[in-house]
């Protein structure tokens, strides 16, 4: 029987970052995924690494550290995942929206985020094709972007070079515990004896928790992305409407949508963002695609004459209180969760990994991670 020091379940961006972090700390790590690398939500990600869209609080602290950690990782492993400090622009189109955005930006600035107010002329200098009626916004130079599938693949490549193992197509069939502590992980082909399991299965993290005899209320929040035909040099940053932040935080089960538009290195334009609680419903809802198109055109009228080339959907993993779940399980010792990042998984992956590695090795962590602790769900768990 194999005896790794730690098993990471999930070869997406969060699992890869955790695995690499643990390997760097000297542990022998095996990564398991029932599918291919980046086969889950990572494969549907836009690659956003944002500080602009978070209210001050634990998540913003996590995001600030994580954004910088991405650039450190890129240096360490030789990049290869299109990391770009592209910068983000948030616009407000109503007086109420502008006031709210100003207040948010000021609080973010106090928390250490660079945010520069933009008047009409500054806004249109940064984004010449923005609708001329938009005259207020903020520029967040720290916002960045990467190619998420490649980021996971490159981190796993680095992991392998350090002796770690990545086994794809290996679904976990059982997780055994002894005295409420992790003892074994079983796949179809192999049994692993270990005391440390990192649950980085994103939208499916609840299933893994249940397998280990615990509970995690992670649910899917469906999103669509429109991808345009190549239209280089139209949109230079990630540009979104200030109402995006409220959408992310919303508890409503109705469709939440707001305009998010960004150019990419490959020349296509990505358009989002929609959020629905429809379980894992896999159909393509044309009415939602239509709303996204309308919203994007209202920000950038020129998009009306740009082709929609393809569209895809993903399922963001979210916890009921909209905070990621990072830390040791409340019931099962040795079971560590690193999941539930909603639409911020790519951005938050490296700092999540730092918390996990720190806690697993009982070392100091860069922030008070208790708001993310899975113990907050203990009261809710089924008897």
């Amino acid at each position, binding site marked *: 029987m194999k005896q790794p020091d730690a098993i990471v379940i999930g070869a997406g961006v969060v699992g890869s970052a955790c695995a690499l972090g643990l390997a760097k700390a000297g542990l022998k790590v095996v990564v398991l995924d029932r599918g*291919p*690398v*980046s*086969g889950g939500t990572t*494969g549907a990600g836009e690659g956003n690494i944002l500080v602009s869209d978070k209210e001050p609080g634990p998540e913003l602290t996590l995001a600030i550290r994580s954004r910088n950690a991405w650039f450190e990782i890129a240096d360490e492993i030789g990049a290869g995942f299109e990391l770009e400090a592209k910068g983000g622009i948030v616009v407000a189109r109503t007086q109420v929206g502008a006031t709210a955005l100003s207040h948010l930006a000021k609080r973010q600035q106090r928390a250490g985020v660079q945010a520069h107010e933009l008047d009409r002329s500054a806004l249109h200098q940064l984004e010449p094709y923005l609708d001329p009626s938009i005259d207020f916004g903020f520029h967040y130079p720290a916002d960045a972007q990467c190619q998420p*599938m*490649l980021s996971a*693949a*490159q981190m*796993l*490549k680095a992991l*392998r070079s350090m002796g770690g193992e*990545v086994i*794809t*197509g290996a679904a976990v069939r059982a997780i055994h515990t002894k005295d409420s502590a992790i003892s074994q992980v079983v796949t179809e082909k192999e049994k692993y004896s270990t005391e440390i399991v990192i649950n980085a299965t994103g939208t499916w993290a609840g299933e893994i928790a249940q397998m280990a005899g615990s509970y995690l209320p992670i649910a899917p929040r469906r999103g669509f992305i*429109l*991808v*345009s*035909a*190549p239209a280089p040099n139209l949109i230079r940053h990630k540009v979104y409407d200030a109402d995006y932040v409220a959408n992310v935080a919303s508890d409503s089960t109705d469709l939440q949508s707001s305009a998010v538009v960004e150019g990419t290195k*490959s020349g296509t334009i990505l*358009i989002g963002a929609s959020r629905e609680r429809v379980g894992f419903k896999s*159909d*393509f809802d*044309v*009415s939602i*695609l*239509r*709303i996204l*198109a*309308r919203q*994007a*055109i209202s920000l950038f009228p020129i*998009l*009306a*004459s*740009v*082709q*929609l*080339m*393809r*569209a*895809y959907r993903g399922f963001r993993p979210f916890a009921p209180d909209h905070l990621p779940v990072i830390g040791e399980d409340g019931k099962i010792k040795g079971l560590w969760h690193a999941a539930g990042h909603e639409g911020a998984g790519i951005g938050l992956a490296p700092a999540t990994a730092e918390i996990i590695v720190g806690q697993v090795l009982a070392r100091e962590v860069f922030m008070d991670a208790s708001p993310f602790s899975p113990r907050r769900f203990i009261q809710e768990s089924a008897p």
Partner: protein
Amino acid sequence: MITVVGAGPAGLAAALSAANAGESVELIESGARLGGQYWRNLPNSIVVDQQALNHDFQSGKVLREKVQAHPNITVLLNTQVWRASHKEGISTLHTISGGTTREIRTNKLILATGAYDRTLPFPGWDIPGVMTPGGVQALLKGNNVKAGKKIVIAGTGPFLLPVATGLAKYGVDVVGLFEANRLRRWIWQLPALLSNISVIKEGASYLHALRKFKVRVQRGYAVVEAHSGSDGNLSAVTVARVKSDFSVIEGSQRKVACDVAAIGWGFTADLSLAGNLGLMQQVSLLDGGTYVVVDEHQGTSQVGIFAAGEITGIGGSKLSLAEGEIAGSAAAGSETNTSKKRKLAKFASALLRTYPVGPNWQSWLKPETTICRCEEVTLEIIEKSVLDLGATDSRTVKLFTRCGMGMCQGRICGRSVNDVVARISGKPASDADRVSSAARPIASPILLGELAQIPIVD
């Protein structure tokens, strides 16, 4: 009301058969004229003897005219279905025509979206001047334009013959026809092939015409490289002898000067809408292509949806006509005799066995050969994604390299990428891999402004 998508032989036959059974039919066609690829015809503004361009022109003209004239058939030309879906027996077609979107709902749908030339990558295949037989045919039959002055025809399959003959009749210097498969395959399939004498006669007449125009037909040869001149256009190709498995015989290479090379390796079905509608598909053992699964009367796995023509299996125009007729009748609630179809299908299978694509075609690839044309992804980039980054299937290769993410959405490269990834990884492509290569939720591009124009109903 019966809705038919696609106005090639299968769609025309289906529309007519349904209309003759008393049904109202809506025939949707993305092109400007009826006829599909097989019955390409000229616009009224260009007056030329089209009989010379297409031996079967007359029967196509008759069918087109019958469909246009039929009181029960409404023809919608220049109408593209950009997305379709199916739920509880109702198919929804999202169409765009002249900038206007329209949703069509139907409980009886006949899908006849046809096929396009199958292409294989080779060094230099992205040089302007390298084309497909279908493309060269479309220029000639649809626009009265010769693709070039010195044309090489190559690849495999009976389709190369009428293309070469048409060009030669039109005064083009057809420098040579290079058929990769050898005549001995004909001998093996002879009993089945002899069941369709008229097609044999047709083939013989093409060969006779080519001899008359002094077009040399060489079998067991393939184009393995294309070369450009100083202007960046095609100036020559390298042809080589290939074994029956398509591996290149070293030392047999020679250059042939040309300004156009029309190269095709059979056909690939257009499954975008079939995928949208959730129709069950399977990979055929005959040619490795993916097709919609249909029953005896062209019924698919979804209630109320029928499929006819090349999307159910490559079989040529006569089989498509037969299948269309059966589908039209079935949709109208009556059954037709399927024995003619079965006979034609047997012949079609024999033809596919006579002109296969050999398993070692990749022997002519070089590391810098473009595999995905749209996103300029080379063989070495794909190799790196498998060997270096751990991609184990074509979908992951797509996510890592952008292969198949360009404007053609994998129509051209999809099949080849599956073969290439299988060879590099040592793991054959699964049926699911192949079916998902053709999954295109947006079946055809649409302007964001066009998508946005419909008022949102709260």
